[in-house]
């Protein structure tokens, strides 16, 4: 059966297998009590970062455009989803409230994806990078100054302070400016996280291997050629960009529901760069690599506490070195020469063996 399978299906199964294997491993470790507290605290963030890295890789690796505002989509998803959860969890059962939170977070982030994507996807790469960066900063600043309250008259919104919400006595402040949303009942579990990771992988892997995915890759490789064979550029670019934003939003909800409070500051430029580091280190365009890199790089700093001061420094060097090593024409030529030499040596040995066999 395995033989008849398509190459891409096999590769997808391996990726999903790694995720399920990781889940089983953690369950076994948990059962024998080998998990430390700090490590089990990292499990949900790992899932969130895996989703973020995979979805950013869709933009950076498959679409070939650099987005520096992934944390911005994460932020709008986290805030809208958490808001829905906080409002609903008082009346509705928790699983339903969570489901709604994920849907709301994803949809809102997707809407922002459309909003940002339509104007900028017509522009070239550098502009897209800077506009997404600007988007991330705008979201951070606005959420930092955003006040939202709920009372018997409905929702009240202000960009100044809680007093200017003009609420009734029974009113409740939902978003309190820089303090964000507080008093969230923690709801994210590792199992939920793994399910979301699997859904993300299923959707994105299927997209990449579909007709649409091939169109997106064609646009990445040569936009003019793609246009000339009749591929609608904006449609497919937007499809990839918005899908990426939706999953960033869902990851944001997952991340936010793991803590009791949610502040806008958490989703800044540094978070966007961190996700980019996962993507670059895992391999641009390689979704399985993103999964592994995000998981390993989230766990590693916990294990290497003493290195914490140098962590970001090392990430910076990694970005530069990986890029030069993978993309510089001289390095590519050097690597080709080296592999050619190894192949030749290997081939010589094989020849020698065969000759011996004959003799």
């Amino acid at each position, binding site marked *: 059966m395995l033989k008849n399978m398509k190459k891409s299906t096999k590769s997808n199964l391996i990726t999903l297998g790694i995720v399920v294997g990781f889940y089983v491993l953690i369950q076994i470790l948990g059962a024998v009590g080998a998990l430390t507290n700090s490590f089990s605290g990292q499990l949900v963030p790992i899932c969130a970062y895996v989703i973020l890295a995979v979805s950013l890789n869709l933009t*950076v690796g498959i679409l*070939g*455009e*650099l987005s*520096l505002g992934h944390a911005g989509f994460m932020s709008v998803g986290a805030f809208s989803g958490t808001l829905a959860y906080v409002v609903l969890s008082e009346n509705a059962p928790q699983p339903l409230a969570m489901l709604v939170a994920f849907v709301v977070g994803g949809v809102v982030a997707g809407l922002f994806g459309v909003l940002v994507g339509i*104007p*900028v996807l017509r*522009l*070239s*790469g*550098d*502009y897209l*990078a*800077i*506009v997404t*960066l*600007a*988007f991330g*900063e*705008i979201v951070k*600043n*606005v959420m*930092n*100054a955003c006040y939202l309250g709920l009372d018997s008259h409905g929702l009240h919104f202000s*960009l*100044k302070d809680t007093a200017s919400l003009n609420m009734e006595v029974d009113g409740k402040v939902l978003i309190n400016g820089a303090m964000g949303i507080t008093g969230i009942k923690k709801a994210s579990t590792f199992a939920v996280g793994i399910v979301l990771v699997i859904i993300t992988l299923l959707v994105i892997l299927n997209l990449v291997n579909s007709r649409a995915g091939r169109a997106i890759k064609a646009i990445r490789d040569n936009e*003019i050629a793609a246009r000339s064979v009749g591929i609608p550029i904006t449609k497919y670019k937007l499809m990839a960009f918005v899908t990426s934003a939706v999953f960033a939003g869902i990851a944001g909800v997952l991340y936010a529901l793991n803590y009791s409070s949610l502040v806008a500051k958490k989703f800044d*430029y540094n978070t966007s*760069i961190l996700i*980019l580091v996962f993507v*670059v280190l895992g391999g*641009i365009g390689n979704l399985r690599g993103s999964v592994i890199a995000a998981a390993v790089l989230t766990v590693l700093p916990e294990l290497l506490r003493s290195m914490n*001061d*140098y962590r*970001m*420094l090392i*990430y*910076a*060097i*990694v*970005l*530069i070195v990986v*890029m*030069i090593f*993978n*993309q*510089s*024409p*001289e*390095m590519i030529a050097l690597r080709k020469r080296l592999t050619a030499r190894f192949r030749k040596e290997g081939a010589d040995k094989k020849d020698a063996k065969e000759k011996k066999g004959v003799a």
Partner: protein
Amino acid sequence: MQFLSYLINGISLGSVYALIALGYTMVYGIAKMLNFAHGDVIMIGSYVVFFAFGSAGMNPVLAIVLSMVVCTVLGVTIERVAYRPLREAPSLAVLITAIGVSYLLQQVAQLAWSSNPKSFTSVVSGMKPISLFDGQLTISAETVVTIIACVIIMVALIWFVNHTSAGHAMQAVSEDRGAAQLMGVNVNATISLTFAIGSALAAVAGALLCSSYPTLQPTTGAMPGIKAFVAAVFGGIGSIPGAFLGGILLGIIENLSKAYISTQLSDAIVFLVLVVVLIVKPTGLLGKKVNVKV
């Protein structure tokens, strides 16, 4: 009167943006890359001035010259080590490398000088503010010096680009790198020169910026750097007068929105300007339209 004071402060802030934007716009025009690390070169330059002038008590002019030398060396080194190997690589690779360099500078600064903000002594602290209309309007010495410095540098730079052979080489490389090389222009040297000039201007901009806004920390350069890029796009990327115009306008927009709309939202408004410019006129105010050919 208050409006006038906000306006003048806006022009002063805009002059700093203009100086930084020059570095972006020249590098973008000539090397066709977005040098994300430019803002962090400013930060390093400010630290040099801080230690030479603020701590060691050097003459302020000498301190700025020293900072210009350090930044020039730094800028050229960055170009040589990180960007030159990727000259023929896809722009995504160059962009990620530039982000890496930017991060590297910030982290090195943080390890070397800690992330605690340092209070920067103004390089023109000896001068008195100017008082106009019977003291109703006060203009600080920093504001005056910043605006004058910016105008002098702008005029000198335009003269340099239009009247020297190195300047002509820069224009040629920016127009068509391959053709310039065939005509005997040393492309690598020209790009290095561009980085050198941009980084030296960044040092001046850093000293002026920190004189007006005297907190210095490793992330000081990041925000002004990004805003200066917005200014460069606003004015038309690749155009030197455009960088000047875009910088001044952006400074005014930022200061007026701080004064009349909201301090917290002023950054968001500045970035909104970028989005609007890119939608309405992607080539900027003074930029040239480039046709894509197959």
